[in-house]
């Protein structure tokens, strides 16, 4: 390990790192704009200049590898002068519009100028002005503010794998653009807003809505997919103003997908904020007392086997626990948390987990995707796969519909019959799986949510067992969920009990009149029309697909409005925290279920969140161990049987509209129209672009 001297103290640092990183390890902060630990080195902002002995000029530390015996100084007059000079140059063309800039208060340029910059400008000429660019419905631009650090270009090229931004022209005329002014198409594009060290790229939905210092920051968990991204919810009053990522190396690193970041405006629209009861064919607002009374009357004398529960994709563990306890007391076996009909068992645990873990992807050397499009189902898992691919020595093959995943994928075919051949060793891929050191397979909901899903699961298990995917030190069997609630639901055993019906069975039985009451906990992705014959109770936050068909609506809380537990696709248990209160009469979901159980005389005796969470741990001890991934028990699962020839595909048809919150969000709707369906951008927005953003 090289020894270096930094500011007179000797340090031993790992070989191969840069001077910048060595200084960071030594706890010395070096100001920078273009350097970012997760992106390639550009070395173009010159802010990180330091003095190195025997070097005639100051050196850009981010691009300089450490060498043994280097003597580095970061606090000499020369370094201070260099920083001051760089900032003065950057500020020559940077507008002084901090008071109206959305980045104000959290701007690197502002902060560094305060600490290292000059106190005035000697530049008397005109500043340059750059026309704003149209980058789509999510990112607003003020290109005059751009300091050309190229972080946005590097992010889209390296992490997102969708190289759409570039720097055209050169020198003084250099501009960041997507050239044709079309919307960016990456699902991770929102991250360039965080990466931008100045106010050039801002969030369009958040533009001019709030100042960063007036927001309350609440650390929480995202539910838009099953990755369980760590997020920070920024609220003002009772309103969610924006959502930002939070660092978690094992889950989302420091990125989040656009759905996680921008769907929050759906939290303010189409909300169910008052209980409603169908009277003479019309849903009418009622108070809680009347709603509960109506339910009691409807449920009086109804035997358990005539009542069914379907749990939706955004439900938290607390409310699902109440469903479980309530159904037990009603003696109803018809409980299902798999509203897409995925043929997943509730045990062993390894059967439904992403066992390799998200970080574990970085150790794999061969990956087989089965009926999944990770780019849409879990953009951050796809980003990990891409990260692994970029390092080299990683091959990805796919069985299922083709889709550009931003890295090369070998297409084996789209029929599940191929799995049979691989399992029996009659396909060349078997050999490659066996030869690989750390092979993995990812089984998507597209492969499981179909009539032969259990047989496909069985085949996948056989492949995993026979090709060395499951060993003492490695588990390459992965199920990629699309619903944030799913793993928690399976952990709590929310699958049909003995004699119980699954979602398809419940729908059919309701049509036949065998099931008279269906309780939907935020379940919107089912064919609700088929429940006409039954009394439908919908408990949830949004008036989406199911609510119009309900007979009784109980308004619940969204994920930002409750302290709740979620389990991600790896089996990682994480807690979301309340950032705002549910609107109007809406209540936290476990409380509603608790009240309902009491109203119908089958009280679940859990009276506060503490009791609920204690009971959670009793039912499933795993749920008490936060933020760890424990290897799931392996065992026999899936059912041997014939598989059909129907092609495998992803269950997600539209990345931006996958759940009730997204569908209520105008931003997501616009993304779907412009980015996926190619609708032209709004003319009034394009008309504003001729301006340079800062001339009034």
């Amino acid at each position, binding site marked *: 390990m090289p020894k270096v001297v930094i500011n007179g103290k000797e340090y031993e640092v790992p070989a191969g790192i840069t001077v910048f990183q060595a200084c960071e390890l030594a706890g010395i902060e070096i100001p920078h704009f273009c350097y970012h630990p997760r992106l390639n080195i550009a070395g173009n902002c010159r802010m990180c200049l330091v003095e190195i002995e025997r070097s005639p000029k100051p050196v850009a530390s981010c691009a300089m590898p450490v060498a043994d015996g280097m003597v580095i100084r970061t606090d000499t007059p020369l370094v201070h002068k260099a920083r001051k000079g760089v900032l003065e140059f950057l500020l020559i063309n940077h507008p002084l519009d901090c008071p109206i800039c959305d980045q104000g208060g959290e701007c690197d340029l502002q902060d560094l100028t305060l600490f290292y910059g000059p106190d005035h400008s000697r530049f008397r000429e005109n500043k340059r002005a750059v026309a704003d660019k149209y980058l789509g419905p999510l990112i607003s631009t003020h290109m005059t503010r751009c300091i050309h650090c190229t972080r946005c270009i590097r992010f889209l090229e390296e992490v997102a794998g969708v190289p759409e*931004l*570039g*720097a*055209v*022209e*050169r020198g003084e005329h250099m501009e960041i653009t997507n*050239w044709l002014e079309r919307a960016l198409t990456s699902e991770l594009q929102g991250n360039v807003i965080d990466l931008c060290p100045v106010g050039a790229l801002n969030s369009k939905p958040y533009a001019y809505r709030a100042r960063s210092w007036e927001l309350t920051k609440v650390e929480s968990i995202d539910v838009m997919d099953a990755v369980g991204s760590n997020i920070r919810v920024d609220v003002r009053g009772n309103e969610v103003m924006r959502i930002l990522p939070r660092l978690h190396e094992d889950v989302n690193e420091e990125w989040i997908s656009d759905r996680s970041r921008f769907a929050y405006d759906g939290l303010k629209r189409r909300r169910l904020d008052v209980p409603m009861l169908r009277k003479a064919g019309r849903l009418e607002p009622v108070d809680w007392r009347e709603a509960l009374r109506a339910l009691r009357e409807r449920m009086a004398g109804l035997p358990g086997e005539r009542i069914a529960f379907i749990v939706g994709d955004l439900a938290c563990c607390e409310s699902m626990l109440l469903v479980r306890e309530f159904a037990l007391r009603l003696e109803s076996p018809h409980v299902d948390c798999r509203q897409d009909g995925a043929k997943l068992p509730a045990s062993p645990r390894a059967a439904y987990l992403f066992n390799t873990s998200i970080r574990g992807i970085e150790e794999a050397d061969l990956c087989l995707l089965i009926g999944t499009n990770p780019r849409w189902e879990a953009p951050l898992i796809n980003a990990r796969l891409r990260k692994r691919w970029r390092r080299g020595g990683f091959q990805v093959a796919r069985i299922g519909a083709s889709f550009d995943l931003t890295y090369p994928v070998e297409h084996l075919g789209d029929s599940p019959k191929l799995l049979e051949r691989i399992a029996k060793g009659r396909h060349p891929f078997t050999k490659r799986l066996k030869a690989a050191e750390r092979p993995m397979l990812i089984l998507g909901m597209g492969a499981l949510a179909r009539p032969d899903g259990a047989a496909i699961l069985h085949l996948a298990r056989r492949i995993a067992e026979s090709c060395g995917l499951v060993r003492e030190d490695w588990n390459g069997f992965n199920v990629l969920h699309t619903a944030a609630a799913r793993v928690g639901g399976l952990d709590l055993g929310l699958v049909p009990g003995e004699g119980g019906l699954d979602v398809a069975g419940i729908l059919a039985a309701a049509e036949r009149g065998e099931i008279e009451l269906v309780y939907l906990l935020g379940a919107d992705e089912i064919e609700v029309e088929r429940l006409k014959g039954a009394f439908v109770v919908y408990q949830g936050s949004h008036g989406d697909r199911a609510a119009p068909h309900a007979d009784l609506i109980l308004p619940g809380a969204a994920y930002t409005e409750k302290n709740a537990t979620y389990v991600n696709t790896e089996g990682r248990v994480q807690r979301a925290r309340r950032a705002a209160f549910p609107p109007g009469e809406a209540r936290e979901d476990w409380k509603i279920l608790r009240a309902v159980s009491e109203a119908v005389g089958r009280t679940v005796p859990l009276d506060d969140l503490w009791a609920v969470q204690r009971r959670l741990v009793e039912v499933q001890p795993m749920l008490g161990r936060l933020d760890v991934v424990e290897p799931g028990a392996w065992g026999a699962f899936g059912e041997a049987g014939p598989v059909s020839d129907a092609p495998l595909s992803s269950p997600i048809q539209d990345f931006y509209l996958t759940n009730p919150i997204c569908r209520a969000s105008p931003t997501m709707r616009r993304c779907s129209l412009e980015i996926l369906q190619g609708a032209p951008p709004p003319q009034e927005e394009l008309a504003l672009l001729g301006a340079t953003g800062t001339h009034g």
Partner: protein
Amino acid sequence: MSPKEPRKPHGAIAPDVERFAFTPENLEKAKAVIARYPEGRQASAVLPLLHLAQDQHGGWLPQAALDYVAELLSMPRIKVYEVASFYDMFHLEPTAPIKVRVCTTTPCWLCGAEEVLKACREVLGCEVGENSPDGRFFLREFECLGACANAPVMWIGEDYFEDLDYERTKAVLEAIKRGERPKPGPQSGRRGSMPAGGKTTLLDLD
């Protein structure tokens, strides 16, 4: 310009096109260039290919040509735009096929580049940055052409014309206008960049 049509070196401005493709001969040339680079590094061929495309399209690059090159090299389109906009030798706006580039950097300027520009304006009938009315010439200033010893300098097609003044510039341009190809190099009669007043060293050499 349709791909089959031969290049017209003295033609008018080529139109903007929806589609662009190399002529069979140019495609052969392009393939030879691409083959110079190792597998997976085809993007290195972007500069020669852009030049080839620009020559084929009468001196400028329509967007269709950039997209065509990007596809040929499996590059992201924006990367080709970056390169094409970075270098001054590529023209992304409709420009006439004969580029008259006059060096106006300090040494040439001191030696009379203004006079050269004046002659250009008069003979071509257009301002700097414009196409001539006959659609054959494009006049522009250029940063240092690197021939300061023979300042002032003008660069047309593949030839440098050096040691210019007002009259000599006029003569060169008029000859080109007539379709001739005037002798490139110093127009003052001296050889290369030897001293203007005759040799002072190596007197025994011819």
